[in-house]
């Protein structure tokens, strides 16, 4: 479904990504794991068209996205959940949900969003800035689901969340996966990644150094934790 080939990216003279390639098939949840600065967020920014200084091929269902501006990539089906959650303080919670256009056939009506996330209904008239970290994360994911995104790009959703919220998030992602949603998760939290993903790409210094399936990662957990420096 989503294919990335030969992706390289630069910040000025410094190369941040080197020939990165991976696949996300329909209905899969895969993770990019790696240390801080390994190039995980840059990869997602390249996929969204937010990082311009790049080369390589990104296709979604065979359609080349490379020449498309960010808004067209979103409309093609990429749902971006950025690392800072991307909540607008000048918009209410409901406006945050209503802002993006609804694109895919899998789009969620607003009342379904509110059934799945009752806290957002309670706070619908509040400013986005008034939400707690967990609520902001829920809002950010709910926004992408309402759009009807076909592939969710999640940038470290567990960061800064209390353990109980991380568990809720895990259930939320597993539910979404059961419904057939495709997800690409960028994560430093290996335990979380292990619990949800079908496959893992290990990213180090801007390159993919290993591809592991769900069983391999369990067997090699301690080695990988060392690798991640956790």
């Amino acid at each position, binding site marked *: 479904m989503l294919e990335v080939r030969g992706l390289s990216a630069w910040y000025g003279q410094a190369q941040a990504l080197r020939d990165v390639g991976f696949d996300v098939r329909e209905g899969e949840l895969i993770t990019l794991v790696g240390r801080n600065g390994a190039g995980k967020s840059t990869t997602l920014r390249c996929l969204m068209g937010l990082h311009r200084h790049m080369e390589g091929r990104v296709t979604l269902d065979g359609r080349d996205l490379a020449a498309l*501006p960010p808004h067209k990539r979103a409309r093609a089906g990429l749902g971006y959940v950025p690392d800072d959650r991307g909540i607008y303080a000048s918009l209410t919670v409901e406006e945050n949900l209503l802002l993006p256009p609804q694109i895919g056939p899998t789009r969620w009506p607003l009342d379904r969003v509110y059934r799945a996330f009752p806290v957002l209904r309670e706070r619908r008239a509040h400013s986005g800035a008034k939400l707690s970290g967990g609520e902001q994360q829920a809002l950010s994911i709910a926004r992408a689901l309402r759009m009807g995104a076909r592939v969710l790009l999640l940038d470290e959703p567990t960061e800064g969340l209390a353990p109980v919220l991380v568990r809720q998030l895990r259930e939320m992602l597993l539910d979404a996966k059961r419904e057939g949603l495709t997800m690409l998760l960028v994560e430093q939290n290996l335990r979380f990644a292990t619990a949800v993903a079908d496959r893992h790409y290990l990213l180090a210094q801007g390159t993919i150094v290993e591809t592991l399936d769900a069983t391999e990662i369990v067997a090699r957990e301690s080695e990988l934790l060392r690798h991640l420096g956790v």
Partner: protein
Amino acid sequence: MDLGYLSVLLFNGLVNGAFYALLSLGLAIIFGVMRVVNFAHGAFYMLGAFAAYLLLQQAGIPFWPALLIAPLAVGLGGAVCERLLLRRLYTLDPLYSFLLTFGLTIFIQDAMRLRFGIQGQPYPLPGELASSVSLGLVSYPAYRLFVIAFSLAVCVAVWYVIERTRLGMVVRAATERTELTRALGIDVDRWITGVFAFGIALAALAGVLAAPMRNVSPLMGSELIILTFAVVVIGGLGSIAGAVAAGFLAGLLASVGAIFDPAIENVIVFALMAVILLVRPAGLFGSQEAA
């Protein structure tokens, strides 16, 4: 001090404030969405006044239709400037667009000066508002009261559009986080020409309102624009409510200051700006991160 004199001063302050508010509102909207500091705002204000003047002189079109036609025409000119000139600079340092609008100002001003001379041209008060209205203690020119009420109504209407409509929601989102808004599927660039044209139309509207009060002259905008920048800073860069509130506040304070010495009227606005920058660098209504 006599209360009548004070109330006249306060009304004068509101009139000046109305102009600051309309101009800084346009600047704030343009800056918010485009991150362009539009130095040419004063020149477009002047073009608004000249448009009204020429409509009357050349076509016999009076004030009321001009109040609609001139902002539309100048706004259209703004859209052309955005498409032909500003658009080429978005990928560069914001300083370039500032320099471009600075150059545009000089070009527009000198072109008008070449054609109409430096001398101000008078513009008649609309007949319906040529009288004075008694406000109990004093009587005050009806036209000036109209300027206050009309500007307030325009500010409220703009506020409504921005706070309560889908169009406004997109403008607020793009103002707060342009890149993210793109990544959420919104074609921000498509809105940009419209936003610029709208901000320019507001400046031109202020120009038409100014024509019957001040002489229509090529330099009328350059005197006002510097003060307006101070007002925008006071309100908070890119803050729409801040621009309006700071506009009226600056107008009132300046005219109260004029009680003591008319010469310090403008100084007060800059002093206020300095104090705000010291105490609240993001401005009255600006978010702290924006500072």
